[in-house]
């Protein structure tokens, strides 16, 4: 085999996936079962996101792939190369230049605009999965809007730890109806989910589910009146660009265990450095 259809999948399959996407957009936060295909990369490595991207990409699109916020992590490179090879689309690392962005575990720092599509790779789409392992049960709970178990779990967190001990894949409620797993993004990113100008699509290949958030959807992180949701991050500025508003990775930089904090969004960090912002580990004066 040397020739593949545009974006690898055959047109019938893409049509099937688009139908699932449209259904997902019509019922924000609802997990639509779809007949996920075996892809030439392993399940759990973004096959859901790849199938959704394949279904929405057009030859005119500009595609960006990030993993952990970075364009250059190995799996992001691998997926970008896959679409360069099978779809021949232009690729970019610049967030604002991309019309389709596939992501794993992050939402870009730069606000997205209308016309952009953000495709999430989702490992476990079911927010109730670790409370109830049975799919037949969790689907029932969603249809009956029976989310008591989730609130009990969050309440138990508070009674044990004084606050909710979920730091990523923090559950949200969509348009007051479906509780949704935002994929394992840090809860720092949760506030960006709601009222976003871009279309957000979530693909879980192994679990055969697609769900979606149309633009400007109301998305609320679950919390209690006396324990409001709080987006958190490391309390440092970025060592490279000095940003104080971005999510940071922690690096170990010497044998003594010295630490440094750097933006996880590489495009954001590089753009700031190009604009002359330098952090304290980069000879900069933006040091805090």
């Amino acid at each position, binding site marked *: 085999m040397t020739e593949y259809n545009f974006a690898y999948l055959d047109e019938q399959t893409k049509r099937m996936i688009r139908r699932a996407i449209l259904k997902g957009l019509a019922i924000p936060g609802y997990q639509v079962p779809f007949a996920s295909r*075996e892809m030439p990369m392993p399940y759990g*490595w973004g096959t859901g996101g790849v199938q959704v991207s394949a279904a929405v990409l057009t030859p005119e699109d500009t595609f960006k792939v990030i993993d952990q916020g970075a364009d250059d992590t190995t799996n992001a490179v691998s997926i970008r190369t896959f679409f360069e090879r099978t779809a021949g689309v232009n690729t970019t690392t610049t967030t604002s230049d991309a019309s389709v962005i596939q992501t794993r575990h992050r939402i870009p720092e730069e606000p997205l605009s209308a016309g952009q599509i953000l495709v999430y790779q989702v490992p476990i789409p079911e927010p109730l999965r670790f409370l109830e392992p049975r799919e037949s049960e969790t689907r029932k709970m969603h249809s009956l809007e029976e989310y008591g178990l989730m609130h009990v779990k969050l309440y138990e967190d508070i009674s044990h730890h004084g606050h909710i001990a979920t730091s*990523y894949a923090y559950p949200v409620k969509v348009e007051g109806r479906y509780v949704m797993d935002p994929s394992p993004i*840090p809860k720092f990113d949760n506030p960006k989910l709601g009222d976003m100008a871009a279309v957000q699509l979530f693909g879980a290949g192994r679990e055969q589910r697609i769900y979606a958030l149309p633009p400007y959807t109301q998305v609320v992180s679950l919390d209690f009146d006396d324990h409001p949701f709080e987006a958190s991050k490391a309390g440092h500025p970025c060592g490279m660009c000095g940003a104080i508003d971005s999510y940071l*990775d922690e690096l170990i930089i010497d044998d003594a265990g010295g630490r440094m904090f*750097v933006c996880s969004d590489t495009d954001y960090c590089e753009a700031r450095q190009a604009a002359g912002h330098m952090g304290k580990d980069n000879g900069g004066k933006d040091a805090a």
Partner: protein
Amino acid sequence: MYVAVKGGERAIENAHAWLAEERRGDTDIAELSIAQIREQLSLAVNRVMAEGSLYDPDLAALAIKQARGDLIEAIFLIRAYRTTLPRFGASEPVDTGAMACDRRISATFKDLPGGQVLGPTFDYTHRLLDFKLAADGDVPEAPSRETAADCVPHVTGFLNREGLIEEAPYDDAPPPDLTREPLEMPAERALRLQALTRADEGFTLGLAYSTQRGYARNHAFVGELRIGAVPVEMDIPELGFAVEIGEVTLTECETVNQFKGSKTEPPQFTRGYGLVFGQTERKAISMALVDRALRWEELGEDNVGAPAQDAEFVLYHADNIQATGFLEHIKLPHYVDFQSELELVRKLRREAGAQQVQEAAE
């Protein structure tokens, strides 16, 4: 000084080049041919075809070569290739009664029409390493004779005449296809069987074994195990009738299971069924035992909470391509999630520490 890591692309290319070199091994040693793998590692080829859900010995041999003998990786290659193939149609159901049996044994009847045919089996070999094989692989020719019967009737058919075994009513409904529709629960038996036939051999074996050790014991007799080639026929619309388009080798296992009756069913023997591509005996028997365990509900048996009775547990975890992908994805970067966990654990420890200090002061 930290420098943002660049060059993931080159690292990947270099890793792949190294992999190719390792796959080939010492170039002073002759390279394996696809034909050698197909002919001399045929049971590996059979497993790859069965779990890859694609009957093509040459492609399976190629996949084994490319995967350096890692069979799950080879199955993955076959599955990924399989999804890209166009579908021209569906064959007629194969008739295993018309199988040209290489092997056919029954553990329930000493003799029966068609006879007991051991065929090429490891069963009564003494598992002693054959050092002669290390020196030269010449084998004396095995004696042969014409097969006695052209049609070997199914053992369960004889039991059925006496009404001792549950009916298996003829069903013409097209079976569901989990490669085209998402697997949803509850899954009917045809769908469960499809999932089991491509399920991981080890997982299926473990589950089947657990039923033998008492986790939903269903005491299975191997009513019949048969291995051989069956013709595959396909209806050609232009012709208006079915023509033979080839043949496939299958392993079929029918178990006869003890059953004392339930609220809804009389005492009778019940059935477990296994059908797998190629000579894949262990898998076919395992499949039959697990199939039988999963049938507790339709037979009105008690759910004793055994893993092999739990269709959701079995079907959602039996696929080794799904399992290995998700298991191995934890190798991927998780810096972001881990960072948020670091912050959380530090916060919890700070609070726990402060509490202890306060308690000590009180």
